């Protein structure tokens, strides 16, 4: 089998080419140890194409560059497919010069040839091919032009295999660029001057002092609405109610003669577990459709640019704003979207902070308590919790930035690519990859934990029982002393917080079951307004639900997941402690 390594700068249409070449015949994985996607695809089973991360060079030490370099060094690469932006050759050829050092045949794909023509850049392909001693193919990937040629060439292996004897190790970047310029001088003529590109026209509006933020917020508003109001959430709710209203009665019927514990295992354990996985899927899919659209159109880089000053205060770059905002809907897609950030440090720090944004599932808990204990100031109380989460994200971000991630500080430079119409096919492939990854990796964990929690809350050593005398209530009683200094140390509350690990809104349901009867009366005797607020602060901050934990594990591995869980527990305890005890002094 021929192994082809696909390399190129970011934003030159590498993914579009990869999709066009391999179609649905591709597999997405992860490079070991880092949150960088590994994509492989096949043409006709005889050619394997590995899509390496988009990079500008091979010598500036980022994870993406190390991965590409190691791959070229250690795998038996037969040919390098180097895609470049034809309208910006000098910078793109810098990477080509470094690829030359690996002494492999190179096929140089000049993409965006139409843009180059528009800009009045005329390239002599034959001359370029001779000068660089590589096969040159001009294409326009977004318009599908020239793709067949690339495919045919790879399948016939009819590319230049003779390697030149030049040594492409230069003494400095200066020398490399001078060499590139000397080649380009022979191959390029310019026929237009001072043209204003569509990108420049769009940027005049999109980056305008007064319009930049309204435009950005409008984009976000639509993505948020699309995800949580128009498409994603309604579909989730539909899935959820279909499970409960149609599947459950049927299964109940089928199992009418089985023993109660088996019925409960299937209905509450298995179907409940499956339910808690699949309801996330529509939300994840619709959100990623929106985010991929922003990313592929070129707008995401602008968003990062205008948000950078604010986000820098919590040690992050501008792009992190989007995962954080998404976190207000649900932390799961928030953490998953952190992958779009440039550096490993940004991705990790963002994933750690996203759960501090108060997600939708916490709202039912706030709403219940606020209506009982603060009937006159409900909105204010709920709002204060959201603000508290944001403030703590800034504080924690600042602390982590200066301790955990101090060494990893990477300079912030991002290219602002030309705008382009996102390609539907790429959008859908990317979106579906996300959904599939979530189902496969996170789904199994969420499902198994659901079943375990079902078991713990329905059994004790004597067999099946109700939650008040289950294993879970024993655990609740055991950990209860931890919560006494926070003002809400009752075993019922501890158990509710435990089941809240399933999904935070479950806290309300569990309290309904355990306290029994009229919940608002029961809560009024169990809490004071102050301890109720302390409890809400704890609900806001403590360990996120299993879906978030599973996603964290999938994206960042066990160590960071353990860290995330523990730091949030500690943070929740400390802040609730301060709130409760400071409150006691004041009131």
């Amino acid at each position, binding site marked *: 089998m021929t192994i082809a390594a696909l390399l190129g700068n970011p934003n030159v249409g590498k993914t579009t080419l990869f999709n066009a070449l391999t179609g649905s015949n591709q597999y997405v994985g992860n490079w070991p140890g880092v949150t960088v996607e590994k994509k492989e695809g096949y043409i006709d089973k005889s050619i394997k194409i590995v899509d390496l991360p988009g990079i*500008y060079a091979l010598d500036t030490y980022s994870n993406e560059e190390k991965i590409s370099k190691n791959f070229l060094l250690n795998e038996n690469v037969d040919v390098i497919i180097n895609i470049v932006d034809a309208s910006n050759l*000098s*910078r793109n050829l810098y990477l080509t010069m470094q690829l030359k050092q690996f002494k492999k045949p190179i096929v140089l794909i000049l993409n965006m040839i139409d843009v180059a023509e528009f800009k009045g850049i005329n390239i002599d392909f034959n001359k370029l091919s001779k000068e660089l001693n590589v096969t040159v193919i001009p294409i326009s990937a977004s318009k599908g032009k020239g793709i067949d040629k690339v495919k045919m060439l790879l399948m016939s292996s009819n590319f230049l295999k003779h390697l030149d004897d030049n040594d492409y190790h230069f003494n400095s970047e200066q020398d490399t660029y001078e060499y590139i310029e000397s080649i380009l001088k022979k191959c390029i003529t310019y026929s237009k001057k001072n043209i204003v590109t569509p990108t420049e026209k769009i940027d005049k509006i999109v980056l305008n*002092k007064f319009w930049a933020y309204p435009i950005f917020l409008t984009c976000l508003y639509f993505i948020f609405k699309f995800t949580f109001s128009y498409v994603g959430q309604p579909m989730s709710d539909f899935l959820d109610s279909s499970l409960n209203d149609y599947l459950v009665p049927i299964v109940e019927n089928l199992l009418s003669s089985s023993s109660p514990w088996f019925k409960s295992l299937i209905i509450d354990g298995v179907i409940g577990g499956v339910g808690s996985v699949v309801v996330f899927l529509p939300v994840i899919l619709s959100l990623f459709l929106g985010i991929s659209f922003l990313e592929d159109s070129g707008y995401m*880089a602008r968003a990062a640019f205008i948000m950078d000053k604010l986000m820098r205060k919590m040690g992050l770059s501008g792009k992190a704003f989007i995962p954080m905002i998404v976190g207000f809907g649900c932390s799961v897609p928030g953490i998953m979207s952190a992958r779009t950030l440039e550096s490993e440090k940004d991705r990790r720090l963002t994933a750690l902070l996203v759960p501090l944004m108060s997600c939708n599932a916490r709202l039912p808990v706030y709403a219940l308590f606020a209506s009982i204990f603060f009937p006159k100031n409900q909105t204010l109380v709920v709002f204060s919790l959201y603000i508290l989460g944001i403030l703590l994200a800034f504080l924690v971000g600042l602390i982590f930035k200066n301790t955990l991630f101090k060494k990893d500080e990477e*300079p*912030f430079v991002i290219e602002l690519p030309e705008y382009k119409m996102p390609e539907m096919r790429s959008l859908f492939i990317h979106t579906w990859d996300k959904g599939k990854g979530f189902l496969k990796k996170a789904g199994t964990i969420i499902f198994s934990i659901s079943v375990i929690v079902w078991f713990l809350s329905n059994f004790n050593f004597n067999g099946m029982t109700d939650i008040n005398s289950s294993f879970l209530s024993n655990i609740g009683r055991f950990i209860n002393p931890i919560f006494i200094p926070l003002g809400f140390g009752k075993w019922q509350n501890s158990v509710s917080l435990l089941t809240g690990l399933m999904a935070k809104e479950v806290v309300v349901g569990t309290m309904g079951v355990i306290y029994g009867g009229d919940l608002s009366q029961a809560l009024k005797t169990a809490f004071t307004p102050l301890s109720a607020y302390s409890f809400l602060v704890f609900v806001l901050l403590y360990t996120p639900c299993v879906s978030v934990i599973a996603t964290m594990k999938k994206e960042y591995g066990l160590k960071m997941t353990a860290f995330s869980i523990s730091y949030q527990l500690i943070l929740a305890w400390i802040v609730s402690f301060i709130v409760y005890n400071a409150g006691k002094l004041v009131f």
Partner: protein
Amino acid sequence: MCICDLTVGKKGYICDIQGNELLAKRLLSLGATYGTEVYIKNYAPLGDPIIISFRGFDLAIRKKDAKYIFVKEA
């Protein structure tokens, strides 16, 4: 003079990049080599970062980093 001293749209030629080694290396590999023509294209609405343009593409960079890019006015 440093690139931040150029007014928007005014061209200059890069003569030196100092400061953080990683950043300097990154900028050099992007083609910000000696003698390259460069100008400030835009400021972010809050005044920072800035967009600089050289070799036909735009790059967003923070002011605290950009101040290590030294230029000669054209």
